[in-house]
């Protein structure tokens, strides 16, 4: 392998500063207590807020529910499309790209007009799973598509069918385990999207973690910085957890030796 030259190191350093600099400054600012003093006051105040745990729990629950919806709806749909209707691929690509071009505020308006039921869902934060599904769709679709293309899905399915398995067994025992890496990627992206989503939750009056960050930021800037730091930590911990879970019993998809 070629060695990284001086130019390469400079580019890497600049990239690291670009990504890490704002984080470090946010952490420093979150610990600022005024007059040159630094400490954990803003963190203590923040954790004493009555709604922090509830909003965090809502966001985590919404993330998990959105991930589940994507696995249950999107994966089988993509498997069926690849196996039986590959001509529909452009349609899938178009639908998956739509959330990128429709502004969030327009999506909220459309969602409120279209999804007016069922009753048991409308009044709860889980109503947000519907728009979050679409928000995460472009990222999840792309990650799962890459995984499916790496598999010889048609032959594996035919092999399973010839051995007496039905399509459900093939998806559960063969396709999903071999999409582990793709599903981990899709889950990470969905987690990041849902944990940071503000517009939908704010307009529809649900008190998620992102809404709380905005609220705190209006009147307590150091607490907002502390909350952002905590938010980063929580998201990263979740991602690390998903990555570890995905790596355990990890699957090699390379061909023959």
């Amino acid at each position, binding site marked *: 392998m070629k060695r990284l030259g001086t130019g390469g190191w400079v580019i890497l350093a600049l990239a690291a500063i670009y990504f890490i600099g704002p984080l470090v400054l946010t952490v420093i600012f979150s610990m600022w207590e005024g007059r040159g003093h630094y400490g954990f006051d803003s963190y203590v105040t923040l954790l004493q807020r009555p709604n922090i745990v509830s909003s965090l729990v809502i966001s985590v629950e919404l993330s998990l529910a959105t991930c589940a919806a994507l696995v249950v709806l999107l994966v089988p749909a993509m498997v069926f499309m690849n196996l039986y209707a590959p001509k529909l691929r452009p349609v899938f690509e178009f639908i998956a790209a739509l959330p990128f071009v429709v502004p969030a505020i327009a999506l909220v308006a459309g969602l409120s007009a279209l999804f007016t039921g069922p009753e048991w869902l409308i009044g709860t934060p889980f109503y947000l799973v519907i728009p979050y599904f679409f928000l995460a769709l472009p990222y999840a679709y792309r990650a799962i598509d890459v995984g499916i293309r790496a598999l010889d899905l048609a032959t594996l399915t035919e092999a399973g069918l*010839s051995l007496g398995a039905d399509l459900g067994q093939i998806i559960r025992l063969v396709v999903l385990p*071999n999409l582990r890496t793709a599903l981990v990627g899709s889950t990470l992206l969905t987690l990041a999207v849902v944990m940071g989503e503000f517009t939908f939750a704010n307009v529809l009056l649900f008190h998620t973690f992102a809404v709380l960050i905005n609220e705190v930021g209006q009147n307590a800037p150091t607490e907002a910085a502390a909350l952002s730091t905590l938010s980063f930590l929580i998201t990263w911990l979740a991602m690390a957890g998903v990555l570890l879970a995905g790596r355990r019993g990890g699957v090699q998809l390379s061909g*023959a030796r």
Partner: protein
Amino acid sequence: MATIQARGVSKSYSGKTVLAKLDLTMGDGELVCLLGPSGCGKTTLLRIIAGFITPDAGQVLVAGQDVTPLPPSARRMGMVFQSYSLFPNMTARDNVRFGPRVGGVPAAEQISRADRLLEMVGLAAHKDKYPHQMSGGQQQRVALARALAVQPQVLLLDEPLSALDAKVRAQLRDEIRRIQRETGVTTVLVTHDQEEALSISDRVAVMNEGRLLQVASPAQIYREPADGFVARFIGAAAVLSGVTEDGAVRVGNLILQADGARQHAGGQPVDLFLRPEHVRLEKMNGHIPPGAVGADVGDTTFFGSLTRIRLKLHDHADSAGLWADLPSEQAEQFVAGSRVLARWDASAPRVISRN
């Protein structure tokens, strides 16, 4: 184990006929090769037998039962694919026990069956390896064991050796034959490799353009090809076009000895097929005796123990010629450009009508 019958099976795609009212019967415990060039319909026929393609017309019967309406999962057929198709997330043993597992066989029986079959294909020591940890030949053996684990009535092999290198292909070919004989399972093998088909089969079914041209033993296919396509497709043969004349074939000014010409009326346009192993060569000493033809030695191709010599016939306007396969030591005396006499037994050529 069971017989397989394809009765009047037809299939077209966008108006193009892929299979045309094809009838084929495979006997109990028989290994039949579907052989033909790319696009001849052999894989389509195999996939219709497997249930992956629905025929436009006709039936597939296994042990006398019509399986045409059954889905692949209900047909009890083991299938081995060209591209290995092992499940990447499972070890060799888990791959082999997949069929029994989804079929509701008790776990202990699944494992003992998988271990027994892995032993049979010589991979008992590799049972805990994942597909990516095995070579192509090993993966294809596991695929074979996996197909046998469902105790199929019929084994379908879709070009199982074509992705392997020559040495492994020859080894695995012998192994497939051995295992097929041991298990006695009726087997259909699709291939475009004539050497593979001739060496492994009980019978070979030669196909072209969606039709069966000849179904016979490998020896019969080689020695008595039913038509010009089979004669050209199977093995090497010189093809000389002419007309029959008094128990011989006239090709231009040449009269070529061929007993087969007697089966045709005089003046009939025919093709004369002559295998290179039937041609003998002598150095020319001035005249051409009856029953021999004069030729110039052309290119030679070295095959190890044999050398194939291309011959340009004298007194023949076209560039048509013969081939002669000689032991390599003997072939060295015939250098390019030298003049030779070519002979063959009159019973050797196959004469096939061009009408």
